[in-house]
């Protein structure tokens, strides 16, 4: 990916964020937004380049839609399962900290993966080192890293792989 293209993407992201915050299509708002987004891209582009790892392709857009849908489905499932555990008089918890492996290298993709794991059924990311994530699991079904990776990571990873470099 060329530097110019990365800068253009960073400019687009910061500008879009500014426009959403303002929620108005007035000329002065657009001008100030373009100026500030331009300044951010120019002065901080080097340290913010990780923000522009998102791929701008059709496959990436489809994966994003799939990811968002899958995420909300898992979020609702997570809440129902936590509600069930909390309301059960016997409190059926079988906690464990298991380790799982990820193939993702892009920092934003890894952040999204760790956040998604934290928000979905009974799992909480505790620590991250290179390719390993340590996940606290309220109702652990397995302690084997391979099986745990399939159960926890695989669902999100297949979307995030397409979305980020």
């Amino acid at each position, binding site marked *: 990916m060329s530097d110019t293209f990365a800068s253009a993407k960073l400019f687009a992201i910061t500008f879009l964020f500014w426009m959403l915050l303002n929620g108005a299509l007035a000329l002065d708002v657009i001008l100030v937004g373009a100026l500030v987004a331009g300044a951010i891209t120019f002065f901080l582009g080097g340290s913010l380049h990780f923000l522009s790892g998102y791929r701008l392709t059709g496959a990436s857009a489809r994966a994003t839609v799939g990811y968002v849908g899958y995420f909300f489905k898992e979020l609702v499932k997570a809440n129902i399962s936590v509600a069930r555990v*909390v309301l059960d008089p016997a409190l059926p918890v079988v906690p464990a900290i298991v380790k799982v492996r990820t193939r993702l290298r892009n920092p934003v993709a890894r952040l999204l993966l760790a956040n998604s794991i934290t928000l979905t059924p009974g799992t909480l990311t*505790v620590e991250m080192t290179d390719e390993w994530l340590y996940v606290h699991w309220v109702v652990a079904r397995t302690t084997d890293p391979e099986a745990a990776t399939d159960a926890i990571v695989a669902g999100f990873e297949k979307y995030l792989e397409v979305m980020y470099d």
Partner: protein
Amino acid sequence: MIVLTALGVATMSIGTVFLALAGLGLRRMPDTYTRIQAGTKATTLGTILALVGAALIMPEWTVKLALIALFLMFTNPLSSQVLARAAHRAGVPATRETRTDALAEDKEGLA
């Protein structure tokens, strides 16, 4: 309009149920890590539902409320992760029912 308002109130009410369950989870769970779990998930969905309810009642606020929800979905799990990591590094014990602690095992291997 009245239908949207009613839907908004219903959505907000469901959200508060999840927030109440999160509170109950904090009280009932056996150790720090399971409490963080109960506190993260249910508060995230509960707050999102409250925001969706607000958007149904005041449709002109939708974009800003969506931004708040997005911000929440990035920061809420992040703070839970950092809390859990800090607890683990400080040696806060997990409940006795915990089956394995792969992180503690690997740390011993490194030391």
